């Protein structure tokens, strides 16, 4: 009897080692080692662990830290950037839902950085049920980056949300950028291209009997 009891205890001990060993092995993100100063790395690692704990993707977080390291940024600035990104990813996940892909969350974080709100992202999710959001959210950020006012960019992206595929979003952004490069103001360029897209949508809806989606976002 004692032999069996000892066997059970030994088995539990081995199970403990087996369970803990991988955790210890994964405890430190290897890509950060040697790239960032130890104090900053410890703080970044805690943010990475926190992301893991709540199910956020760690890849964008590690990438942001490595970008700071490659550009010679001080540790505090790297930690600050990583922490901010963690918050944006969390808000994006709340808006897009638990099933959002890492790419969608990264793009959502960029859209938030561009000035979109959590409600805007949730509205985008609602208008594109079952469709990927990476490109739509990314185009929103890209439009703001070329000078389109945030509200205008959000309205445009939401207006396209129901009918446009990724390629239409990309074409829309390229057309706006081209118009800006040719001298148009960002707002005017976007207005012209959005008008063209709305006309095309109305034409398609008339052809197929569908109801065009509203172009204004919800207040």
């Amino acid at each position, binding site marked *: *009897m004692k032999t*069996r*009891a000892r066997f*059970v*205890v030994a088995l*539990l*001990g081995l*199970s*403990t080692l087996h*369970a*803990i060993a*991988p*955790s210890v092995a994964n405890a430190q993100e290897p*890509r950060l080692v040697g790239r960032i100063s130890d104090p900053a790395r410890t703080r970044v690692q805690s943010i990475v662990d926190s*992301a*893991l*704990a709540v*199910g*956020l*993707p*760690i*890849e*964008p977080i*590690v*990438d*942001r830290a*490595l*970008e*700071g*390291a*490659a*550009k010679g*940024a001080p540790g505090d*600035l790297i930690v*600050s*950037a990583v922490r*901010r990104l963690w918050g944006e990813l969390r808000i994006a996940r709340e808006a897009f839902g638990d099933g959002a*892909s*890492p*790419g969608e969350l*990264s*793009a959502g974080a*960029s859209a938030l*950085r*561009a000035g979109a709100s959590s409600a805007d992202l949730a509205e985008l999710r609602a208008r594109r049920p079952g469709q*990927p959001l*990476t*490109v739509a959210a*990314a185009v929103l*950020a*890209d439009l*703001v*980056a*070329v000078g389109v006012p945030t509200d205008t960019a959000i309205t445009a992206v939401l207006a396209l949300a129901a009918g446009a*595929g*990724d*390629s239409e979003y*990309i074409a829309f*952004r390229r057309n706006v*950028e081209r118009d800006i490069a040719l001298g148009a103001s960002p707002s005017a360029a976007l207005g012209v291209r959005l008008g063209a897209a709305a006309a095309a949508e109305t034409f398609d809806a008339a052809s197929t009997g569908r109801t065009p989606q509203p172009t204004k976002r919800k207040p």
Partner: protein
Amino acid sequence: MTEQDDIIQRVAHTLKEPVRVDPGIVSRVMAEIDDLPAPGRAVPVSRSVFAWLRRRHTIRLSPLGGLTVAAAVAAAVLLGSRLLAPSGALLPSETGTLGASAEPTVIQFVLVAPGAASVVVVGDFNDWNVSTTPLARSEGDGVWSVTVPLSPGRYRYSFLVDGTTWLKDPHAASAIEDEFGRPNSVLTIGGA
């Protein structure tokens, strides 16, 4: 009758009285016998383990053993939560249009830099490693290029010229994020 005969008779009387046996003892004994391996016949391991599990045991643990058990339970819970947590990896999960699928899309990075001695592209796709993805210079001109297969996703990147000068890609969108004072370009590949 002698006194000795009387003692013998009393002892004999006592011995002749029926012994009262607990009525459940037979079933208990038979159950124990059932649990024992029959001579010359192998008992299935599962049956033996089941029988062992059915019996009551007293397990004595040292403090160290108790800690081991507690650690095992904690580790099991930790491992379970890790397994249930979504992976943190950048994985394509859905199909889209630009790039058409979750298959990697080959992207060519090009920079015109006639006076440069070296050009590398660094970004989210190569861990921002300045030595992983050097661009090659075309013969006779200043056009530098490299191709990189990328899965669907959103990638920020920048060119590093001569190991010192960071440049945005003049043909790509600018990234909205600029926390380190050196702006990036951004590339979005649909499908995720």
